[in-house]
């Protein structure tokens, strides 16, 4: 590489970083730009979310609704109004929690006035548009800066990637983002507007919070996927895998469901299998699909077949990787946005033990909750008690574990917290992978030098070296087959492969390969 051009490329990168920070900084403050006025139109939309008997009281409890308020003041006022109504009523007779959240969001959305709601296109360009452009400008010069190859230089000196101040701040931001998204969406209506231009294009209407989230998710996978592809451009395995996981996120998780919805068809993420997709067997989903005609029934049976036939069968042939690091949306985000943080996963035996307890507990929870749901669906015999199970699962697992912890903790504890400790689908696939699969990571004879790169960069916290240095194949239920251990190995030791199962669990230590002596354990 000529050093003459390197300063120009560096300048380009710095400009990219500056634009990214500008866009990201604007994104952070955009929710504060608009003000909120609860006029009659806003009320008529928002009160739809509330049972009729509470509507008048609620509207009356909201003081001075037409005074322009800031986003924070407005959200708090809405909350106060709900509290005031409930204060006068016996427990259980007031406005329910789920109604409240929907009401607050609907009211704030309809009450929003100001520059962002007036010209969302402009603010979209200035926030995520600028940030993405800047990020690409930052990543692309790498193509010319260094020859292809593993470049993990300075990762453990980096304040973002090694849990330094910026990493912790980033973690705090992500955690805050998920808490607001799930539990306090009325504070981020300004953000939701930033997805309006795309929603208009795709569906001809404004974005809701899940469209906004899905869109942002896709952007992260796409931009950070480009970064990943640049960093691993020497590896065809990584390029194909990244193309696959990006394709499934953009196409299957985002475009197809939104287009189906726009066409007024039953809609679903065709690759999202139960029990990761824990709402699949919920009443509203089953009823929605059943009422969607032949197409709805096809989707219903596809969902069942996907969960109970396709996903396990593919895992038997290719390992769980085909799902977890090639198709899955959580995996897609982890492999792209989360890639800079893979070295933060805990490799200790203690963490492994916790992992086995927690992930299998979540699986049991998911199975029991779904069982109760289905039993109730068919017999109706449960009344409302199964609903509590759903509510708790949705809160503890669906929101807190998968979202707040799963992604929020990327910079703090690695990019696969959810996949490793929480995902019930991963638990099932892990059992298939361990006991009934053709997949393994083969250790290349005696070539291991115990350097530790494989273990360090294993996002699942597997101590790959433990196996490699004794010449043993790596067969672990948690392995998602990302292939990075094989990439970072300086001695060509590891190979992900599928094949005949004879000798898959090799107990022979190959340290003495060739001497004819079989080592005892």
């Amino acid at each position: 590489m000529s050093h003459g051009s390197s300063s120009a490329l560096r300048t380009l990168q710095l400009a990219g970083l500056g634009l990214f920070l500008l866009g990201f900084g604007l994104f952070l403050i955009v929710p504060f730009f608009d003000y909120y006025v609860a006029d009659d139109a806003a009320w008529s939309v928002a009160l739809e979310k509330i049972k009729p008997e509470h509507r008048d009281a609620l509207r009356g409890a909201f003081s001075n609704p037409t005074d322009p308020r800031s986003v924070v003041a407005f959200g708090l006022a809405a909350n106060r109004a709900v509290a005031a109504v409930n204060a006068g009523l016996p427990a259980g007779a007031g406005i329910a929690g789920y109604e409240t959240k929907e009401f607050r969001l609907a009211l704030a959305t309809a009450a929003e006035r100001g520059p962002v709601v007036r010209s969302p296109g402009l603010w979209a360009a200035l926030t995520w548009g600028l940030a993405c452009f800047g990020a690409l400008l930052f990543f692309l010069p790498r193509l010319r800066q260094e020859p292809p190859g593993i470049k993990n230089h300075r990762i453990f000196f980096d304040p973002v990637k090694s849990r330094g101040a910026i990493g912790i701040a980033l973690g705090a931001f992500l955690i805050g983002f998920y808490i607001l998204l799930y539990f306090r969406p009325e504070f981020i209506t300004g953000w939701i507007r930033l997805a309006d231009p795309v929603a208009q294009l795709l569906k001809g209407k404004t974005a809701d919070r899940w469209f906004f989230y899905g869109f942002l998710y896709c952007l992260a996978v796409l931009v950070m996927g480009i970064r990943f592809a640049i960093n691993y451009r020497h590896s065809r395995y990584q390029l194909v895998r990244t193309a696959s996981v990006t394709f499934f996120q953009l196409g299957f998780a985002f475009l197809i469901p939104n287009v189906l919805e726009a066409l007024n068809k039953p809609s679903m993420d065709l690759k999202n299998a139960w029990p990761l997709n824990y709402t699949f067997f919920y009443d509203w989903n089953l009823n929605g699909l059943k009422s969607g005609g032949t197409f709805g029934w096809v989707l219903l049976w596809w969902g069942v077949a996907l969960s109970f036939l396709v996903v396990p069968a593919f895992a038997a042939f290719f390992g769980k990787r085909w799902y977890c690091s090639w198709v899955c949306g959580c995996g897609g985000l982890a492999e792209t946005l989360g890639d800079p943080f893979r070295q933060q996963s805990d490799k200790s035996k203690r963490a492994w033990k916790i992992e086995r307890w927690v992930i299998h507990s979540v699986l049991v929870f998911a199975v029991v909750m779904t069982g109760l749901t289905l039993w109730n669906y068919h017999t109706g015999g449960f009344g409302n008690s199964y609903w509590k199970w759903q509510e708790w699962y949705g809160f503890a697992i669906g929101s807190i574990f998968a979202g707040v912890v799963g992604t929020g903790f990327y910079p703090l504890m690695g990019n696969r917290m959810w996949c490793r400790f929480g995902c019930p689908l991963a638990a099932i696939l892990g059992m298939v992978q361990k006991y009934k699969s053709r997949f393994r990571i083969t250790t290349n004879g005696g070539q291991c030098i115990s350097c530790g790169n494989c273990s360090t960069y294993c996002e699942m916290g597997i101590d790959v070296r433990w196996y490699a240095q004794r010449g043993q194949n790596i067969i672990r239920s948690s392995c998602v087959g990302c292939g990075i251990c094989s990439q970072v190995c300086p001695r060509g030791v590891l190979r992900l492969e599928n094949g005949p199962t004879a000798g898959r669990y090799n107990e022979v230590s190959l340290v003495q390969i060739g001497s004819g002596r079989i080592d005892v354990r």
Partner: protein
Amino acid sequence: MSARKILIIGNGVAGVTAARTLRRLGSKDEITLISAETDHFFSRTALMYIYMGHMRYENTKPYEDGFWDEHRIGRLRARVTRVDTGAKQLHLDSGATMPYDALVVASGSKSNKFGWPGQDLPGVQALYSYQDLELLEANTASGRVRRAVVVGGGLIGVELTEMLLTRGIPVTFLVREPGWMSFAYPPEESAMIARHLREHGVDLRFGTEMERIEAGPDGRARAVVTKSGEEIPCELVGLTVGVGPNVDFLKDSGIETNRGVLVDEHLRTNLPDVYAAGDCAEVRQARPGRRPVEPLWYVGRRMGETVGYNLAGKPTVYEPGTWFNSAKFFDLEWQVYGQVPAQPGEGEESIYWEHPAGKLGLRLNYRGPDGPVLGFQVMGIRYRHEVCQEWLEAGRPIRWVLENLGVANFDPEFYRQYEHELVAVYNRRHPESPVTLKRKRGLAGLSALRRAS
């Protein structure tokens, strides 16, 4: 056998493997690893990654800290100053003594210095130990170094060069030989590695020897002067001209040494109950094609295991096994199985294919024209150890090897395979009866081959 006190000098891969093997064979002995370097075993080959920020020191430890107590392997941080083989005890730098029933010397290497003027100046250093790494951090702290000169074209020299470049320090790399390790590598591979270093911005100077190191007014290294009189200003000089056995402390111990500790085929020294393994050991009668001292991770590991068996009362001859090695020069991986010398020997032939982009290479050596395969050497491509070794030991003829060569490939899935290109090279040389490549990479092909043969 009643419990003995077994002391192991050195906690590198040789000493640790000896201790591990002994335990795994069910020994009840009291085992203690003594090291002056670190409290815990770490991977010496990974030192470079700590400096480059790929890993922390913690990540280079092959076993968790609790492992040693769990397996009742004691650890002692001390320097052995003298070995009293008469009284069977070690003298430590603390003044304490430790008795032993059996002793393993696995004290590793020390870096070579060849008496250059200025070689002991501040700012001049080698790279072998954890302390060398700490010194390198100190020597390169806070932008002090504007240029470094690395002297000696071996693997450690490349590693040090790569390390410094990741810190933005330009490196001039002086190599005495006319090409990259031209005494060991065939010209094509040698040229590929040299090209690769230059592509990474290394100022690589072949046929250049250092005359002396000049000191600046601050008493630190200021410049390197070459034998041709050129002065290269620098603030850091890396001396990477090989290593030799670290055995000075055994002087007057009665343990027989030459360059290293002399050992027989069971890795016993001249004294009963004293063994040696790893870099510090010198085999009295090396096998054909092997050297008496082989400072290599794989050799240390294997010797350590052999010593473990012998200590456990299972007499075992040190079998160095079929030669293999590997390394990574910046982004360029290299593997060798069997013998691939710089020039094929009498009656031997060599076929080589190189990718037009110059970053991939495949070489097979064999006894011509259809004799047994002698060696595999791959650049930027990975080969399967087990398969290469099996074929080498079975003396598979070259034509058979070429037909099945796809199976030897160990590259990740989706990587292109180039075995057909090497077969084409052979066929151009022997157009009368061309070979056809029959198999592809992967476990399916491997098991089909095993069923067929």
